[in-house]
């Protein structure tokens, strides 16, 4: 499978290099990568589950109430989350609040679920196009977080950067894989 990843990353890098060689003369809203994103990143997060209104409780069904846990910075999925919780801003663990846009790109953390002892890959997508949701708790955790030279693991940047509407609203925590 590594070859597949490498192929994708190589293509990513080549496109980037070509697209950014000269300063864009237009002041259009969408950068090269945002456009590239329509093709490359737009397919990310394909619907693999039916539309879900369960507030992501499937993986947090512990006594004590998953909903309440998801509103606290200490919740296990939030081990590398730098932002305001969408789950306390009209969204859920996996849903952006109504009227916002899900970010096309995201950083990823690896968090251990205390309920099954397994490490999960968590995609921290930002929700975009609204003011920062100060009504919701601000959390800062950085397990496995890395500086921007490891962009996919970096949480100090506005991940709404590739969206049309770039205002940062809040952050979700979506389980996208099991760590090996």
């Amino acid at each position: 499978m590594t070859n597949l990843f490498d192929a994708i990353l190589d293509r990513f890098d080549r496109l980037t290099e070509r697209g950014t060689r000269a300063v864009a003369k237009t002041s259009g809203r969408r950068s090269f990568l945002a456009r590239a994103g329509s093709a490359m990143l737009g397919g990310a997060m394909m619907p693999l589950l039916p539309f879900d209104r369960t507030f992501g409780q499937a993986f947090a069904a512990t006594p004590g109430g998953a909903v309440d846990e998801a509103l606290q910075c200490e919740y296990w999925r939030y081990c590398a989350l730098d932002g305001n919780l969408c789950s306390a801003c009209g969204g859920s663990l996996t849903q952006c609040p109504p009227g916002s846009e899900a970010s096309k790109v995201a950083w990823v953390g690896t968090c251990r679920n205390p309920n099954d002892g397994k490490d999960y890959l968590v995609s921290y997508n930002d929700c975009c196009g609204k003011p920062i949701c100060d009504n919701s708790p601000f959390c800062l955790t950085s397990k496995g977080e890395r500086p921007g030279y490891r962009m996919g693991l970096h949480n100090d940047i506005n991940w709404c950067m590739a969206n049309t509407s770039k205002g940062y609203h809040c952050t979700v925590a979506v389980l996208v894989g099991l760590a090996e």
Partner: protein
Amino acid sequence: MVHLERIALCALLAVAGTPALAQQAEFTPEQLTVRDAIDPGPNVLVYQQEWKGAGSIAVFGKNDLAFKGLMTSGMMGQMVVAPDGRRAYGQSTFMKRIVYGDFEQVVQIYDVPTLSVVGEIALPPKAAMTLGYEPMFRLSADGAFLYVQNGTPAASVTVVDTAKGTAVQEIPTPGCWGIYPSTAGHAFSTICGTGTFQTFALSAEGTVTGKTQSAAIFDVDTDPIFISGARVDGDLVFVSFNGTLHRLSDADGTVKAVASRRITDGVEGAWAPGGYNLIAYAAKAGVLFVGMHANAGDGSHKNPAEEIWAYDVKGGTVLSRSPVEHIASLTVSDDDAPVLFGLSEEPKLYRFTSDPAAGFTLTAAGTAAITGFASVAAVTP
């Protein structure tokens, strides 16, 4: 770590149809979506004003203060909510460099269930940039027109056709302030610095067809009224700095005094009304709630409430006095047992239930965090 990061990136970059993660049989990835609508039910909307950035309208469940999300506004804005609670309007300011540069004022039209901006109407760049006051931005009884208070500092009112999405007319209202739409048709009244009211009749197209002036209603020097107003059985009600309640009728197109009475008569401790949107009327219950503070004096009229008084407008009596924590603005539901919402300067949203059997005494029943300068709230059905 490199391998982990690449798996992660792959999750993000995954080309549609690539079964990369599905190979991990024991795990089904979750799906990121955007929630399509808020939970149904009655809401409380709070305008969270900002003076150096984007304000917003915060939506809470009426019954539990569950936070349902934000709708985006601009700087130094106002809010008005349609009676059905499904549509709301924000009026605010945008500059090219946020605090300087090219200046625009607009109305943003909100669909409340989806927390979305569904339209925008350009305004003449004269709208008053003030703290949140309900009479700065009003909807006609039928929802056909929005009235925008202008202040440059000269006062005028912009009439906006909500169906056409355009500003129809600007009506000069020199020396007057606040907008009080009629209960039928498209007239509105305004309070003037001479202690009188002016009333403007408008056509179905939103153009002025007539203008009347009231006799003297209040003494601007000795007992000025707050611009916070309420509708009581079709009449307009205001309170003054000293606690005089003025009941006025605008039914025949000219504002006329109906009754006037001091709500503080016989009360010890120099109590007086104070705050911003400091009165709210619960129609079914027939009770006017007023934010009150003790030891009132010159300059105390913006003091937040230490008590909220439940006042029987018909009987002319104070039914109850409930101690509260620094509530500067009120709104109330139209239930048999009204639910009152207060905004404090902390800022915080307070919820109170009331007991009809005990003179509508208030009981604290929840708080929620809010942000910015919040002085306008509205309850929806």
